[in-house]
């Protein structure tokens, strides 16, 4: 019973968490916790076969399928909190509490008597016992299950399949379209700009900087932009200033203030003057290159 009293609160808290978390991914992780705890409870209840099946089928297959669909549905999967029917949410909570109270009162009214236990039924092995039942008394249900699984697999394929209504554009068509767009709308002919690559950041979530210091919107993936996980150029500049301050402290000297302005100038509003001072400035060039290397 120790396992039960440890796992039962965890399961209830995680199940309540599913009700309140905004993101579907978090709900899936909480559900995984509940299901693994359930598997342990099955093991405690002398059902080793179900323990393994619960982990393989539920946490292994079904939850992975959930996560797969969450990833496909993607960015805007977080729940809206707008009530479309007035008072529906509170009414649902009241109904749920009433259902729970009904079930609990029902359970408390009955006396289960002495537990028989599964020692006798599991004497020849739990899996052997289950197989005996499955292939004798429940063999018809077992066969129907096979039909159900085939139907489900076929149904999923039919539902998820999408027939292509037009031919897939090849490389030649895409190139022709690009040139046509250039001719009619004046769109940029070449490929999109690459994301920013700096001494400390070369990740795809960092936008490239235009000559005037503003981030280039087209240089990062639109998906990342929609998720709001893009690092902004001013933050990078703050980073660089921190590092420069840390490096400039012990180095000291006359070149430090000029270097600091050059470093921040790289990523904020005035990169041209920053570059000029950093590269061509008299006296400051020695420490400047030194610190560039450190960065």
């Amino acid at each position: 019973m120790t396992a039960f009293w440890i796992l039962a609160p965890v399961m209830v808290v995680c199940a309540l968490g599913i009700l309140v978390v905004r993101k579907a991914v978090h709900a899936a992780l909480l559900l995984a916790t509940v299901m693994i705890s359930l598997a342990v409870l099955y093991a405690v209840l002398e059902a080793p076969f179900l323990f393994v099946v619960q982990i393989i089928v539920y946490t292994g297959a079904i939850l992975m399928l959930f996560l797969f669909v969450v990833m496909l549905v993607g960015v805007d999967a977080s729940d809206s909190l707008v009530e479309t029917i007035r008072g529906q949410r509170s009414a649902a909570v009241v109904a749920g509490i009433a259902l729970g109270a009904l079930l609990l009162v029902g359970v408390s009214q009955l006396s289960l008597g002495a537990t028989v236990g599964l020692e006798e039924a599991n004497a020849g092995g739990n899996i052997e016992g289950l197989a005996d039942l499955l292939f004798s008394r429940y063999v018809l249900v077992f066969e129907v299950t096979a039909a159900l699984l085939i139907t489900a697999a076929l149904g999923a394929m039919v539902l998820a399949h999408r027939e292509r209504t037009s031919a897939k554009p090849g490389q030649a068509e895409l190139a022709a379209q690009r040139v046509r767009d250039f001719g009619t709308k004046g769109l940029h002919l070449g490929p999109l700009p690459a994301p920013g690559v700096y001494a400390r950041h070369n990740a795809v979530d960092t936008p490239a900087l235009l000559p005037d210091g503003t981030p280039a919107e087209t240089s990062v993936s639109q998906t990342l932009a929609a998720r709001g996980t893009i690092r902004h150029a001013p933050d990078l500049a703050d980073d660089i200033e921190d590092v420069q301050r840390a490096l400039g402290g012990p180095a000291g000297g006359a070149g430090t203030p000029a270097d600091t302005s050059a470093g921040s100038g790289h990523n904020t509003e005035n990169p041209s003057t920053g570059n000029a001072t950093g590269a061509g400035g008299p006296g400051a060039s020695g420490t400047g290159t030194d610190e560039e290397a450190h960065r």
Partner: protein
Amino acid sequence: MTDVTPYVVLSAILFSIGAVGVLTRRNAIVVFMCVELMLNACNLALVAFAKQHGNLDGQVAAFFVMVVAAAEVVVGLAIIMTIFRTRRSASVDDASLLKY
């Protein structure tokens, strides 16, 4: 011999939480997860009663529930995918075209 009543009580609590989730959540995927939670709660009760009565029929029933749940999830998620593809939304409120 341990008493199985706490397991049945836990099963009832999880079932109620799942029911509240089905009624309150708007995201079709999370609604589906709550349905899974209810199925799992039923499985826990079935396994607990199998131990109570000392035969394996309850465990066989739980096994069949798992099979049906797997089939149901496959079809359900395919439907959610199809709806998402046409309506660009996984919210159960947006699929209300039959109302009008």
